[in-house]
């Protein structure tokens, strides 16, 4: 790569130091787009956004616009949103239903399965030259549907999505499954899109389990915006995790999360107390989930980041946020808010109101994150600042493998998950093969002393 600072010097995991260059330099930004976003599995959208044949939803992969589309036969596709002739976006509506994507520029048109159909004056201008079947919309070579969510990779050699997810699937399931434990069943009720002037990795790190940044949310914890706040409960969420063992978990593929392992005698913690009907619903869901999942119900999700840029909130709130890099110092965020599709209307209404007051640019919690990310980026651009690396030494070595849950697990707040993230990140930027990228055949990690 062309960066002045080689990646292996920029990321020094042995000493827990990472250069600010990877957060501000155009060279690193370019390298990420070329070597990471062209290979990793990326979150595209949700099948609930395209339920019928011909439905489409325009999404992004890295810096580029893509069309998520259900064709006339019902199959799901993801296409680059760019005409094969001169590159014009063939779709500039966010969502809708169509039988054709017609390019506004020269009117080439494509069917919903991506095939080039209409070429004006074909007989006169192109006969015997243009082979239509070779000029379909550019389609992702790898696509996966998982419990309603849609994922894609530009690398034909990428491993299957479930292998890429690895053990992180246990945590993602708790986000995507119904609150009563039935598999899948979520729907997207809305999407936030906004731009903030910070490097995308600050946001990803927040969701890798940066529980250490709690003090920045002091204001919202003081005033209380949780769904029991009107009953005098403080905090930004209900205290569902009170009795649990918090775990910070990393996986070889770069995924990391903060989840909670509840005690064997899993008990319902009162929540949504200012809405009796909703509280009754969630109490019921909790008991049903316990009955369905047994011991597995002990794992509750909090936050996580699926490598590289798909972050989630697991319960309060609940959704997936994708961090699309615009430039080294600018990110476009898209948050997809989730509810159980078959939840009663009253429950959905309480959830959406909580999501709006918690999340995104208008959210009382997340506003403070954006402030941090902006000024952390801004104050790292300078020549002097860049000489000094960020510190990632928290809880060095303080994790065990597969104890008490699968993965590399810390039971104290840790920067092991970002250290692991940047180890994998470096591997992508070094052009590593898939065995290295997802930790196939990885030697067992030594159990470090706590």
């Amino acid at each position, binding site marked *: 790569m062309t960066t002045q600072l080689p990646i292996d010097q920029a990321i020094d995991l042995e000493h827990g130091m990472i250069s600010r260059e990877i957060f501000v330099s155009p060279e690193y930004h370019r390298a990420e787009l070329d070597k990471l976003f062209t290979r990793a599995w990326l979150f595209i959208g949700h099948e609930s956004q395209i339920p019928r044949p011909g439905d489409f939803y325009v999404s992004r992969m890295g810096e580029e616009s893509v069309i998520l589309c259900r064709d006339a036969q019902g199959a799901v596709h993801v296409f680059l949103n760019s005409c094969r002739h001169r590159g014009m976006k063939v779709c500039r509506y966010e969502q809708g239903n169509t039988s054709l994507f017609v390019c506004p520029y020269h009117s080439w048109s494509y069917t919903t399965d991506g095939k080039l159909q209409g070429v004006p004056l074909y007989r006169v201008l192109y006969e015997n030259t243009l082979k239509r079947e070779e000029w379909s919309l550019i389609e992702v070579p790898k696509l996966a549907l998982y419990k309603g969510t849609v994922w894609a990779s530009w690398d034909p050699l990428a491993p299957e999505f479930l292998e890429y997810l690895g053990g992180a699937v246990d945590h993602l399931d708790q986000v995507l499954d119904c609150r009563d434990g039935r598999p899948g069943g979520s729907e997207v009720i809305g999407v936030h899109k906004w731009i*903030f002037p*910070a490097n995308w990795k600050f946001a990803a790190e927040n969701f890798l389990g940066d529980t250490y940044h709690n003090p920045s949310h*002091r*204001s919202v914890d*003081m005033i209380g915006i949780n769904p029991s706040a009107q009953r005098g409960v403080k905090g930004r969420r209900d205290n569902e995790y009170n009795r649990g063992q918090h775990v910070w978990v990393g996986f070889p593929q770069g995924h990391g999360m903060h989840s909670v392992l509840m005690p064997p005698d899993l008990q319902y913690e009162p929540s949504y107390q200012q809405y009796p009907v909703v509280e009754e619903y969630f109490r019921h869901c909790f008991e049903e989930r316990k009955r369905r999942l047994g011991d597995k119900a002990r794992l509750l999700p909090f936050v996580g980041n699926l490598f590289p840029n798909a972050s989630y909130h697991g319960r309060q709130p609940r959704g997936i946020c994708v961090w699309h890099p615009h430039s080294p110092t600018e990110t476009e965020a898209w948050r997809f808010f989730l509810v159980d599709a078959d939840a009663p209307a009253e429950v959905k209404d309480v959830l959406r109101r909580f999501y709006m007051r918690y999340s995104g640019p208008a959210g009382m919690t997340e506003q403070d994150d954006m402030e941090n990310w*902006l*000024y952390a980026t801004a104050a790292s651009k300078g020549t002097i600042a860049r000489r000094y690396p960020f510190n990632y030494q928290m809880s060095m070595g303080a994790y065990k493998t597969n104890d008490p849950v699968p993965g590399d697990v810390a039971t104290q707040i840790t920067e092991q998950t970002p250290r692991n993230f940047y180890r994998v990140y470096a591997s992508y930027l070094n052009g590593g093969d898939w065995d290295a990228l997802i930790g196939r055949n990885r030697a067992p990690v030594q159990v470090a002393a706590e």
Partner: protein
Amino acid sequence: MSEVIERTPVRRGLAWFELKQEIEDFLYHEADLLDQRRFTEWLDLLTDDIVYFMPIRRNVKFGQHADRENTRQGEGISWFDEDKWTLGKRVEQILTGVHYAEEPLSRVTHMVSNVRLLDVQPSVEAPDEVTVGCRFLVYQNRVEYETHTFIGRLTDVLRRAGDSWQIARRELILEQNVLLAKNLSILF
């Protein structure tokens, strides 16, 4: 709400002009409270049952604007779909002094223009409820270099409260699709 069209014919007698002036003054007063950071006094201008709504705008095909351009109040996800309790929480949060997205406080100016009375009930002579439309231009500057300009259309339903008015419903149509500001940490 955004489709409220001025009721016709409105008889523009003296009472109408007096009322329009009174409503304009109310809106300018409200802007002063926000820009002078008198947030608690601002809350007093809102009815207890206020609906405060800012939809997300979407890029839709010609002909679908009425149905699909804006997210809807009471459904799904918008920028704001709030009640008085939540708005009170927003003020309370700023007043903690540790809401870092507004600490230090932004410098904000609310401009109000194109004020029009869209509906008056029961009559211009004895108005209890007024629907007023206007444009807003909100300038925010924070810390040193951060500036945002929020421009759009506002429709309010104002209710008579003694010798003044209270806002019973506010709809803010921001002319943006992807939000170009990192935060909506100021009050509109």
